[in-house]
């Protein structure tokens, strides 16, 4: 089987065509192989892609406009719906942005709790992405293995916040409640049982000759190109650049944990797969460290004007009632200013650019959505490749429609 090296793609795109005509193919918007609402108008010569033009915005919901009319705590549910495969990371990125703007210091314990939840979210997100790469190559089995594990992560979210997919987890200033004993049992059980199941998944694909032949050199991108196209996250690291926000600009006490940033070499589908596999292992390590080193303290910061008082207090004390009313009505003391805060989302640098004029809602909120920025490299990555490689390239890039279209 000959492998096509698309890095020298231009030589494959000649004016000579195989059957004398170029066809236009509409891939999407609701194609079962695209895992979301993506449309690509492709010019194909036989099975070879000559050009591709993505059309996006099918599920655009005007989040940035909505955010200009909502108090700060009501924006958290909007962030859920960006990258819905790992909503807790979005939620906490937003909480940290507001905390940065308002100058709120959260206790160390909150940082550690957040790290645990965020790394669980990263594992869930990577599991979806990697198992779907398997599905797109025709290997459905691995997908069924890890989706059971993802379900366990969702049960843990449920234990913390009551929701599974659009989590709205945590609050500005911390968590609404302590991790419950049930959560701790579930987490410890997960940490004990998951590695073996994950290894089983790994055995099915990572060194599988058929899988390797299929994904190696599919949709590659060089480090320079990746950087110029604004790649971040695992896709960038697969191209060989060790940029990770958790290390470059540590937030939420990430500096306390010992982990490595896996990097790839060719930036192809296989490298992206391998980088995510290793990141899952690193995330497990981070969770263990956070659990072992969990500091004593409160699960929320002492900021009564942002953090809702306990409900019993609201019925009993005047002060709590006032704070409760003010927070619910969006009457929180926010300074005027502008702040950019970035977190390492599961698919790249998720940034919040927030401008406040001191009013009850943001004056402007811009989401730096990683997959919106790197998806524009897609036409170049699939140019000259086979149609089936284009499907693989898209699923391995972890483009999430909700985040893409905001």
């Amino acid at each position: 089987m000959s492998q096509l090296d698309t890095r020298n793609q231009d030589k494959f795109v000649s004016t000579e065509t195989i059957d004398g005509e170029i066809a236009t193919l509409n891939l999407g918007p609701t194609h079962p192989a695209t895992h979301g609402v993506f449309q690509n108008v492709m010019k194909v010569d036989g099975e070879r892609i000559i050009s591709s033009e993505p059309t996006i915005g099918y599920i655009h919901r005007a989040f940035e406009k909505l955010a200009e009319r909502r108090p700060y705590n009501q924006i958290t549910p909007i962030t859920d719906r960006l990258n819905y495969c790992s909503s807790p990371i979005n939620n906490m990125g937003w909480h940290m942005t507001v905390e940065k703007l308002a100058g709120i210091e959260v206790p160390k314990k909150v940082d550690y709790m957040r790290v645990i939840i965020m790394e669980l979210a990263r594992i869930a997100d990577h599991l979806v992405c990697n198992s779907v790469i398997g599905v797109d190559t025709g290997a459905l089995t691995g997908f069924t293995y890890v989706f059971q594990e993802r379900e366990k992560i969702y049960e843990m979210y449920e234990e913390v916040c009551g929701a599974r997919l659009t989590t709205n987890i945590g609050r500005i200033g911390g968590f609404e409640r302590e991790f419950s004993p049930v959560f701790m049992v579930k987490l410890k059980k997960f940490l004990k049982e998951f590695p073996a199941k994950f290894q089983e998944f790994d055995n099915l694909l990572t060194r599988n000759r058929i899988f390797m032949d299929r994904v190696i050199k599919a949709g590659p991108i060089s480090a320079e190109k990746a950087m110029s196209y604004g790649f971040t996250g695992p896709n960038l690291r697969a191209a060989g650049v060790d940029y990770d926000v958790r290390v470059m600009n540590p937030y939420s006490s990430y500096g306390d944990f010992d982990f490595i940033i896996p990097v790839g070499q060719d930036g192809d589908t296989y490298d992206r797969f391998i980088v995510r596999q290793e990141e899952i292992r690193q995330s497990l390590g981070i969770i263990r460290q956070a659990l072992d080193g969990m500091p004593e303290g409160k699960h929320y910061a002492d900021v009564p004007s942002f953090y809702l008082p306990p409900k019993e207090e609201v019925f009993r004390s005047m002060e709590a009632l006032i704070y409760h009313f003010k927070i619910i009505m969006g009457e929180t003391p926010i300074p005027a200013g502008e702040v950019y805060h970035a977190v390492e989302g599961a698919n790249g640098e998720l940034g919040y650019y927030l401008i406040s004029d001191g009013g009850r809602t943001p004056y402007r909120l811009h989401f730096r959505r990683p997959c919106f920025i790197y998806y524009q490299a897609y036409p170049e990555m699939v140019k000259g490749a086979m149609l089936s490689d284009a499907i693989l390239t898209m699923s391995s890039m972890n483009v999430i429609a909700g985040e893409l279209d905001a």
Partner: protein
Amino acid sequence: MTAVNNESVLQMLKEEFTEAVMQSDTQYGMLSVEIPADRNTEIVGWLKSHSLINMGFLTDVCAVHYPEQKGRALVVVYHLHSWTKNFRMRIKCFLPAEKPEIATMTGLYNSANWMERETFDFYGVQFIGHPNLKRILNMDEMDYHPLLKQYALEDETRDDKVDSFFGR
């Protein structure tokens, strides 16, 4: 070797471009510099190719609308990041609402392509020289730029969410 931090970069910019550094401030640790809109590619290109600062990564492009500022109602904001020095900064270019035109950054960073299309889509900023400046998230038939402040999100007769109602 000079350290790359807010003060030193601002100093270097002032030395190189003197009057073009119109305003600067540092909020929450990030340096923000205002430059003339017609010199954006020149100054960002200099920051990118500078051997010490090396702003190789364009993190974000977006716009903000301040309707009450006459002659400078729109601002295009660039977030730059130097990965070698781990240094972030913000560049702002103010534009008049009547003629929101600015040169494209696509020659410097490929990633500017869609981010500028998004900015055009929502604010109507014309990026001169952009290879494919058309709407990206909204439908092509739309005849206004929805994130401009004159377009209310909800029924304008509603007053239950007005700031003044809350004593601000």
